[in-house]
């Protein structure tokens, strides 16, 4: 059985919080749902909150990289926030550096990164 992870919309940004122990199909669904919603709402930013994630394995790590790449192609920036120290240590040992994925320590800082990008983009137009 696979579930859908709820995607919240805050202004120009989408927010997902990875709370539960996700099975692989739910992870795949999230990837597709996010891409669809970025386009539907013209979102400029995606925040993925992994505060509650006890582990990030290679499958979820790949999902984070893919979401960041897909979002970038759709003109949205992705920020992963709230990674636990033990998760960071484990990811590096696993061999996943999540290159290309922006991170911030918490939700507030993640939203600040997106706000800065949005204002820089507006000034450049």
């Amino acid at each position, binding site marked *: 059985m696979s579930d859908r992870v709820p995607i919240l919309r805050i202004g120009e940004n989408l927010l997902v919080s990875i709370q539960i122990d996700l*099975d692989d199909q739910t992870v795949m669904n999230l990837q597709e749902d996010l891409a669809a919603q970025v386009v539907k709402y013209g979102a400029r930013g995606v925040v993925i909150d992994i505060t509650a994630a006890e582990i990030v394995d290679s499958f979820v790590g790949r999902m984070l990289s893919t979401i960041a790449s897909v979002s970038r192609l759709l003109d949205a920036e992705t920020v992963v926030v709230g990674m636990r120290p033990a998760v960071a240590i*484990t990811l590096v040992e696993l061999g996943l550096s999540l290159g290309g994925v922006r991170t911030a320590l918490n939700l507030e800082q993640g939203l600040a990164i997106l706000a800065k990008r949005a204002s820089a983009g507006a000034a450049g137009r």
Partner: protein
Amino acid sequence: MTVAEPDVGEVRVQTIATSDDVVRARQLARNLAVECRLSLVDQTKLVTAASELARNTLVYGGGGSLSGALVQDARRRGVRLTFTDQGPGIPDVDLALSDGWSSGSGMGLGLSGARRLADDFDLRTTVGAGTTVTVIKWTH
């Protein structure tokens, strides 16, 4: 080198036949890690290794099982996880254990990553008969 067989506690078994079972295998690993009082970082490493190996059992082995137990030797406690399948086996173990190699859709970090995350790692495979991977994480 001869290694003394550790004392093994009650063995708990989780069937791995669906994607939900991979989640249950992770939970079994987590429960054992907590009972063993592994450090938070070591718990995270063990559960992550379990997730990689359980997925391999399902995706490449066509399903199988996880047997988990607390173990104890003269000096320390640990958690031992054994993943068994009756799948096609691994023809080239060295290749399968190298980073980036994958016969499926993953990043090819499953086996090599799990080996790095565990303290002890043992892989036995027979082409056409199946694969058994055992990992142990010890308290320090």
